[in-house]
């Protein structure tokens, strides 16, 4: 009986949709693999990809992990952001969708960031928009950079400093 109870307790302690990578995912040794096509071969090779995505949700039906829910983050003032570093981050993370000054072939999925200073948004508001924009618009396509662990708090502070500096 004691053994049975211990077993049940163990079962309860293990979440059913634990953070397991589904078996139909292209993963080897816990790392994201990319398919490699070999000409004139009947075999599909898999090589380690330059980035690892195993910690995020896949499209697999076996994937029982949950999407991180919309999260509020109360940014504490002062901003203390480095706008030069923010610019470098913006050219890495934002430029595909948003138009930034100086880009000659800009994206336009997101709103343009040129003359951003004129909007006079409060720093915490811009911070929240980058950290998790789903708070303002649940149907947004903008990634939640903070909630999904893509950018650290200081990174977002730097981005806000850069955006607020765009004349």
């Amino acid at each position, binding site marked *: *009986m004691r053994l049975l109870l211990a077993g049940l307790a163990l079962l309860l302690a293990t979440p059913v949709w634990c953070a397991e990578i589904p078996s139909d995912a292209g993963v080897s040794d816990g790392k994201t693999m990319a398919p490699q096509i070999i000409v004139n071969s009947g075999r599909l090779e898999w090589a380690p990809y330059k980035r690892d995505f195993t910690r*995020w949700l896949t499209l697999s*039906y076996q994937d029982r992990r949950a999407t991180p829910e919309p999260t509020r983050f109360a940014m504490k003032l002062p901003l203390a952001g480095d706008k030069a570093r923010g610019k470098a981050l913006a050219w890495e993370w934002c430029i595909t969708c948003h138009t930034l000054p100086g880009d000659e072939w800009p994206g336009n999925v997101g709103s343009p960031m040129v003359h951003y200073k004129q909007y006079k948004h409060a720093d915490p508001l811009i911070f929240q928009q980058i950290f998790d924009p789903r708070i303002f618009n649940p149907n947004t396509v903008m990634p939640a950079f903070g909630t999904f662990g893509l950018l650290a708090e200081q990174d977002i502070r730097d981005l806000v400093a850069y955006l607020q500096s765009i004349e």
Partner: protein
Amino acid sequence: MKTLSFLLAALLASATLAQDIPYREYEPFERYEPLVSGDLTLSGTYQYWKDPANLDYRLAGNPDENWKLNWKFMDPPFNQAVHGGHFAVDRGERLFKQLDVYGNFASCLSERTGSQQNLRAGYPRWRADLGHVAGLEEVIEHCGAKQGRVLQNGSYDNSAISLYLASLGNGQPINIDVSAGPMKEAYDRGRRLFHTKAGAFNFACASCHTHNIGKRLRGNVITTIYGDAAHYPVYRTQYMLQSLQLRFAECNLDTRTQPLRPGSQPYTDLEVFVTALTNGYPISVPAERDW
């Protein structure tokens, strides 16, 4: 003791119930028609590419406008100095004839008749022998294995055979029936999956290909999902020869989502959905696409 066991059982049941529904996000707007002209209510670009023989090549030469042709100007008779897709067709033909010496490879592929001209237009389809809906590439792997030939789903040789079979049906409209049975179930699952957000950026396929068609991601312009299945497997300059399901894997990688293996059920459901949105559009292979 009885109370304790009951309590534990109740706890277990509630835990399982709660855990059955993990939090998911979906892109809204699921209004599609399983017919290529349905694009008229999505992107409206169908008017520019509906007639492959009559494309307006002035649009093709303009980097601001060429996306409106849904890249159909790189379908045959594109033939810009014969691209790698043509070599793949030759390779596919050779392999097919090797495997089909006694006619059982072709009959395995089409289950009954052995007429290969209609194969591509009618896949994915329900396969009674496999017990599920399967894409053509999965069936090629299955039928190759019966003869001891390794033709992994997504491999060059597998896609080459698939491309050769598609080339036999060139000009024939894609025609899969998703109105009932397991095909309808697969279509519905695929449509739902198309709108399911996943990955580091929390993107669904629909985040771009339903809601942001015609917008720019720097040098790329997002195009419609209608009409895309007609030119697969496709020759792509970076991947050589790519099946539709490997394209999904690449899409996943590009949007920072862990890809799945070709032949997995989610990818097959997506293939059913995407192919149904090409219903009525003629097969055009071998085609080339950039990147």
